[in-house]
């Protein structure tokens, strides 16, 4: 039997490495244990897959203390030993309901061994491009596939490739944007950690198509494991001759470089990314000229996102038509979503375009993990918006999502229940964009700050009549006045929350109430005398001694003294502390 342990960042954080060590300690030979990346069932980590020939038994939420039982099962074959760890049918559906292209090898092959990628048809697409196709034919296949940029903007990939191909000049660059800065999205990290060769192969095909001799990956420094596995993969690919001079004996040569980003959201914007690659402050350039004409070192450059490249080898092997057969009129193929927040099954979901938000959140994601109803889903991060429950049947398609005021974005889906304050959510994103604005454009630099101040006032109960209108006015001014995507889309979280949750803004401004009970300045804590058992835990934890009461008697909170820190609410075991 062969044992495979999921070791993506999430798996390791959940304890996968400890599990691996305890399996070794339990007497399982190192030769029968290997690792894989992230299967995307993050809520079930650590995951241990046991292969008996080709038959897979998947164990979930494995802890160190389960190691002996697993070792005994390997020895005896007595399934009763591990029955409680075996993934349920319901949880298995999380995967069986998906269609995986970009993630096809993730959580299956060992990302540290090129042989396993090659066994999964790896590098055959590159070989067929280099030895049987012209760059124009490759671009034509991508055009047929309808593949569009998965980083957020959704621009047709073939068009960018073609523009870079057509640009005059010998020296060209192919760049991968792996600076996944969108909070709440982590599919790019998963692809690099779990299937780095798929990214490399996609990039090499792109480089061949546009005529680039240099490929660069700009990856976030916050992803140390991804960088480590990518470096390892590059070494292996070089050793096999897939990177370097005369690849597959052809006259195509390409070198590869990794650059670690240093933490700036704006570097997701392609011209800012180029500035950063050149060692400068990541501030966007004026377009035109577009990177396809004048990019890295002012040479023609093409930039695509990780997930975009992750689809390329599959498209070459299966044909553009097979990819285009999935999806809607305007959005082809599949898209990966990082489903997180208050959802029961959080993780990575890859589905064909054309499914609905309900399919992802309820059918695959299993609905809410709390007993509170679904309120909204945030898509597209700081550039996106909040889609309310009434629009849960919205189809996943660039246009349909755009019509809601949100965007497809890079695929972050943060699910919220009734306990999330939407004004607070808007404030959260404005705090982010105000900090991340590079400062080049006045509207973005000062406008986002002013909006943040207004939202802070509103959530403190100091909102004034007319604030909503003023916010809207500022939103449109920033959209008009900003040079790059960061500023142009920064108002989206505010605009969508005003559009769909205006009553919540009004409750904060007029009634000085936070309906979700999240804004600490607008809530009051009290003890429900019927539920209180007089355990004194709240009084002991109150930092300002605002709670009084004798043992086994209902306690009371002195609201004048209370600083609304919420400690009593969190520590109470009987749900007796209430907020309103």
């Amino acid at each position, binding site marked *: 039997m062969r044992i495979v342990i999921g070791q993506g*960042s*999430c798996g*390791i*954080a*959940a304890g996968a490495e400890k599990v691996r060590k305890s399996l070794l300690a339990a007497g399982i030979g190192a030769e029968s244990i290997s690792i894989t990346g992230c299967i995307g069932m*993050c*809520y079930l*980590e650590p995951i241990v897959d046991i292969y008996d020939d080709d038959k897979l038994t998947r164990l979930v939420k494995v802890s160190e203390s389960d190691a002996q039982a697993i070792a005994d099962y390997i020895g005896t074959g007595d399934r009763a030993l591990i029955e409680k760890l075996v993934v349920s049918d319901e949880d298995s559906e999380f995967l069986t309901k998906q269609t995986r292209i970009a993630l096809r090898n993730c959580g299956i092959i060992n990302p540290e061994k090129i042989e396993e990628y090659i066994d999964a048809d790896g590098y055959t697409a590159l070989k067929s491009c280099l030895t049987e196709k012209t760059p124009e034919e490759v671009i034509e296949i991508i055009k047929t596939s309808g593949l569009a940029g998965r980083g957020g903007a959704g621009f047709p990939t073939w068009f960018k490739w073609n523009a870079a191909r057509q640009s005059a000049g010998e020296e060209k660059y192919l760049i991968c944007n792996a600076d*996944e*800065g*969108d*909070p*709440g*999205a*982590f599919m790019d*990290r998963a692809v690099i950690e779990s299937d780095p060769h798929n990214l490399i192969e996609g990039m090499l095909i792109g480089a061949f198509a546009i005529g680039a001799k240099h490929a660069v990956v700009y990856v*976030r*420094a*916050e*992803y*140390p494991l991804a960088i480590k596995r990518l470096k390892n993969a590059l070494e292996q690919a070089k050793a096999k001759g897939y990177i370097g001079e005369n690849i597959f004996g052809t006259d195509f040569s390409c070198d590869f470089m990794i*650059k*670690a*980003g*240093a*933490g*700036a*959201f704006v570097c997701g914007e392609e011209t800012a990314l180029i500035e*950063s*690659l*050149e*060692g*400068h*402050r*990541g501030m966007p350039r004026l377009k035109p000229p577009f990177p396809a004409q004048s990019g890295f*070192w002012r040479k023609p450059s093409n930039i695509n996102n990780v997930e975009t490249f992750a689809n390329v080898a599959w498209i070459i092997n299966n044909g553009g038509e097979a990819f285009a057969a999935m999806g809607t009129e305007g959005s082809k193929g599949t898209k990966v979503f*990082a489903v*997180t*927040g*208050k959802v029961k099954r*959080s*993780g990575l979901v890859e589905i064909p375009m054309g499914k609905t938000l309900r399919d992802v959140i309820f059918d695959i994601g299993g609905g809410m993990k709390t007993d509170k109803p679904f309120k909204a889903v*945030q898509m597209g*991060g700081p550039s996106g918006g909040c889609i309310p429950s009434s629009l849960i049947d919205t189809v996943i398609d660039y246009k349909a999502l755009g019509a809601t005021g949100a965007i497809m974005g890079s695929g*972050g889906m*943060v*699910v*919220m229940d009734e306990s*999330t304050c939407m004004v607070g*959510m808007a404030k*959260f*994103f404005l705090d*982010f964009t105000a900090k*991340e604005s*590079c400062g080049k454009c006045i509207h973005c630099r000062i406008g986002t700050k002013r909006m943040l101040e207004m939202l802070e006032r509103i959530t403190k109960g100091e909102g004034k009549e007319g604030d909503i209108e003023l916010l809207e006015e500022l939103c449109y001014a920033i959209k008009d006045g900003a040079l790059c995507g960061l500023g142009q889309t920064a108002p989206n979280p505010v605009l969508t929350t005003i559009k769909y949750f205006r009553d919540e803004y009004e409750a904060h401004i007029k009634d000085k109430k936070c309906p979700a009970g999240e804004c600490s300045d607008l809530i009051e804590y009290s003890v429900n005398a019927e539920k209180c058992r007089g355990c004194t835990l709240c009084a002991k934890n109150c*930092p300002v001694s605002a709670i009084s009461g004798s043992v086994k008697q209902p306690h009371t909170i002195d609201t004048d003294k209370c600083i609304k*820190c*919420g400690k009593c609410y*969190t520590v109470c075991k009987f749900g007796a502390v209430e907020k309103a």
Partner: protein
Amino acid sequence: MEKATVDLSLLDGVLEEYASVKGSLITILQNTQDIYGYLPKEAIELISERTGIATSEILGVGTFYTQFRFEPVGKYLIMLCQGTACHVNSSDLILQTIKDELGIEDGQTTPDGIFSLKCVACLGCCSLSPVMMINEDTYGSLTPEKTKKILKELREAAV
């Protein structure tokens, strides 16, 4: 925390490799920070001398990116995730717990030099939110109790 004297010879290898490679400033600064834990003034001056890039420009780049620090950090650098999923799953409570336990604010270091706290953008482990990373290790599904326990264990390991 008292700053130790900066041994600039540690930078030799980095400057040897990158000083004359154009576009390498960020890489040089990253390597410098790996060596010293922050960007010492003396190191910035040496980098300027060897690369020909003005110190003002180096500082301009250094202050633009959140990764760079200009003060030494503690033995354990706590990076608390401020991503959306963490926000929705009450990372505020974890921040408050760390502040209460250590008596420091975001960006500060404990007087004993053991812990530094920094709030950072999304760490990309959203399914385990709320999340923090301490040095290279990620800790997920945090609760105030779990956070206290982790800090206690690290403190004990440090002394």
